[in-house]
């Protein structure tokens, strides 16, 4: 049964990231000077760093691009597409200089992993581009100011993050609102203007990620809101077995308590037993076993505090467990 579940994004504080000991891709290796960018005009087709590849499609004929650019632009003031490479934060995540800018309107914007194994992406930091942010805040000649003429329009700008494994879409997606004006109280309306961590482990092991935009400001010619966003500090778990099926969701398999101290219970509601594996953040197998129908008490008594992942043989994805 194909399951498609949209998870509510868990926004964690910057201090919380210290828990993660995984590989972090921060784009600083491109060595860009301040206020410069790479937009694919060298026709390389994209940007490789660590083991990821950010696709770029640059048209020489039309001097235009889609996909990804790498940027150190700091302009948080200038609206419009002439400032399409800047993040509204004026820097990369955690004060760094370099970040990636995603632009796409056809759903083909992807990040792929260059090695043959799948990855669990713990998450990354995301924020609005200056172009999209100021367009939603003030409106422009094409796109509306969010809230509309009255200020009450329930506008939104949503990014749907999806994982692929062996060319197939994984079961889950993660939704992140780059702007949300759907609140009854307009004072709660927001447009993201800080680097915000988006947790993606729920997508499970994937070999590529794709990004699809949704906006309330849409017409026959597509979305009017500028389809840009910025990404930094992509945090990867080490490679895991390619036989692992991604896409499992903790909303389908109850795990409690979570966070746990020494043990936790898994409610296995299916009629047949299934093997399970628990990995640590380094991708090492900590525990293996069989899930029997009903409740299964599992112990990680001798393991250090931190994040672990439970993977079930025939089920997609991984369940995040926190030992505290």
């Amino acid at each position, binding site marked *: 049964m194909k399951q498609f579940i949209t998870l509510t994004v868990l926004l964690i504080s910057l201090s919380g990231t210290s828990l993660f000991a995984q590989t972090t891709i921060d784009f600083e290796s491109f060595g860009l000077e301040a206020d410069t960018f790479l937009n694919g005009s060298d026709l390389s087709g994209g940007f490789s760093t660590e083991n990821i590849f950010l696709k770029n499609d640059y048209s020489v*004929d039309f001097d235009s691009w*889609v996909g990804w650019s790498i940027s150190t632009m700091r302009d948080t003031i200038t609206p*419009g597409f002439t400032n399409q490479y800047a993040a509204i934060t004026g820097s990369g995540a955690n004060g760094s200089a370099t970040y990636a800018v995603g632009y796409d309107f056809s759903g*083909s914007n992807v990040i792929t992993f260059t090695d043959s194994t799948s990855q669990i992406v713990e998450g990354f930091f995301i924020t609005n581009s200056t172009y999209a942010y100021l367009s939603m805040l003030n*409106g422009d000649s094409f796109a509306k100011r969010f809230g509309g*003429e*009255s200020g009450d329009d329930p506008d939104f700008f949503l990014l749907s993050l999806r994982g692929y494994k062996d060319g197939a879409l994984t079961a889950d997606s993660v939704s992140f609102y780059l702007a949300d004006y759907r609140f009854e109280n307009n004072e709660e309306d927001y447009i993201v203007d800080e680097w915000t961590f988006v947790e993606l482990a729920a997508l499970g092991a994937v070999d590529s990620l794709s990004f699809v935009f949704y906006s309330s400001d849409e017409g*026959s010619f597509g979305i009017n809101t500028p389809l840009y966003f910025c990404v930094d500090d992509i945090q990867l778990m080490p490679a895991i077995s390619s036989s692992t099926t991604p896409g499992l969701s903790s909303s389908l398999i109850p795990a409690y308590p979570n966070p746990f101290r020494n043990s936790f219970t898994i409610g296995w509601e299916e009629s047949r037993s299934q093997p399970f594996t628990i990995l640590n953040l380094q991708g090492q197998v900590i525990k293996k076993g069989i899930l029997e129908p009903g409740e299964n008490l599992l112990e990680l008594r001798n393991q250090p505090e931190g994040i672990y992942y439970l993977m079930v043989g025939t089920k997609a994805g991984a369940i995040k467990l926190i030992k505290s």
Partner: protein
Amino acid sequence: MKQHILFSILIIYSLSLFAQTEGDHTFQLEEVDIEAVSIRQEQLIGEEWRFDSLDLARASHQSLADLLQRETNAYIKSYGLGSLASISMRGAGANHTAIIWNGLPIENPMLGQTDLALLPLVSIDQLRVHPGGNSAAWGSGAVGGSLSLDNIPSLHEGLSVTSSHLLGSFGKQAHATEFSYGKETWSSETSWYQLSADNDFTYQLLNGKERQNTNGDIRNWGLLQEIYFSPSVNHQLSATVWFQDTDRNIPPTTTQNESLAFQADRALRATLNWKTHVKRNLLSLQTGFSEESISFQDKAIRLVSDSKVQRWVQEINLSRQVREQWTYEFGYQYQYVRAEADGYQNMHDRHQHAVFANGRYQDETWIIDIGARQEVADELFYPLCPRVAASYSFLSGLRAFGAVSRNVRIPTLNELYWSPGGNPELKAEKSWNQEVGLAWEKQTATTSLSYQLTYYQRQTRDWVLWALQESLPFWSAVNLSEVHTRGLSQQLNWGLSGNTWKIDASGGYEWVQSVHTSSLQSPRIEENTQLFYVPQHKAHLSLRLSWQAWQFQYTHTYTSGVETFSTPLPSWQVGQLFLSYRWRMLEGILRIDNVWDSSYRIIERRPMPGRAIETGININLKSLNMSNL
């Protein structure tokens, strides 16, 4: 390019030599008793909306867009007061109307259209609106209809000076002065006009609150020089030069906090025309030049986008009347277009040749027009465009008419070359137009009444749309759609006059259904849905009263709702009042636009102004004796 121009000049020059040889004799010829006319200049079959100088004077210091919206069935898509305005005739698009100034095309070749807000009525003496396709006469773009804007020589001898000044709401000021001088063989007219407006009107938002329009001011001035020289009754030489300069700020949309956008439009247009009548022949040689530049700037987004397009047109046209009933004409036109734009990667040019032929049979009951035009652009032959039209008069004042024509629109330079998305492989749009109609007219010494009903349909193939294609990561121009159009147009005129008074009423109503015959994904268009910004219904009614020195006119316009790119717009209606009083050489006018203070929008998120009052004075000094000056 040189070869093309040289070729064209040689043809025209050699023909003019031939004509001159003939002309050497014609100077000694007896007075011409039967004049041949250019068939395409005198459309006799089908709909026509004609506005003479008196009609245009009532709308002085307004634009062509204002008049057409108010007093014809054409639909004007206006971005707001003084902002870009384009025309849709018979359910066609903005670049499906040929705009002809003194016989030469003036639509911008980059855009395939002309901003009608930048065509002030003070710059022309006559306007004729011809709905219906006629590429056989006017070539590419004459699909939905054609507009003929003409300057006409004054018949007045001596010096005359007219000057008009107007003040209005929203900081509007307009001034125009014309000097004309005529003698036996020549006349000269020099016109200068200037308009400025703040356009700081207040409009209503959707939640009922009010907001003031900002950054909407416009400054426009122009200079028009006409010279007419007739050495004999058989010869006329005319030269016209028209320069216009417009600076416009572009206001924010209703969902935009602020706009710093600005656009400057400069246009220089010139024509030189020589006509000679030789017995039953009319030979016309015409050359024209135009240069239009548009500079768009937006300080907020640090964008400057400039474009400039130049066009040379040369045309030779020979009309010949054979016996009483038959007239035919042959013509050749050469156009050279050269365009530069920041949106182009290189300069682009186009050589366009056209040959055309028309024949007309006319007697007391029948008028039959047969014509065809072949266009060749950059050695590419576009489809032959024939047109057959006939009119038959029967009973008393009744007339039935019909026409069939094939029409084309050659892609604009932007559709071909704009970066990104321009597609040099685009084909021309091709359409077949059919129309039938019935007209009735009755006239007595004191009354006149006429009514015309026209049904038309049009099938357009290879309609160009900007669309997403799988292979390209941006919107690009493609021959994507087929559009089927059908409609019903009605026109009514009534007049009653007495010794010191006159009442006129005129009205029109048009129903049009113009739909894509199949659904599209990007842009998202459902099958059989109306084209964007093409209303299904439009109606207007004008009532004019003249009594002694007073003139009064009320015009009411209704336009049904339109499909837009996102949210449909509701219908709207506006009224306009005009009052004038003439005393000797002076005339005072009062005009109230949008008299009922309607809140409406023609373009989504672009508000239109509420009630606006204008008052002005016209001074008409004629028969001034030069020696007294």
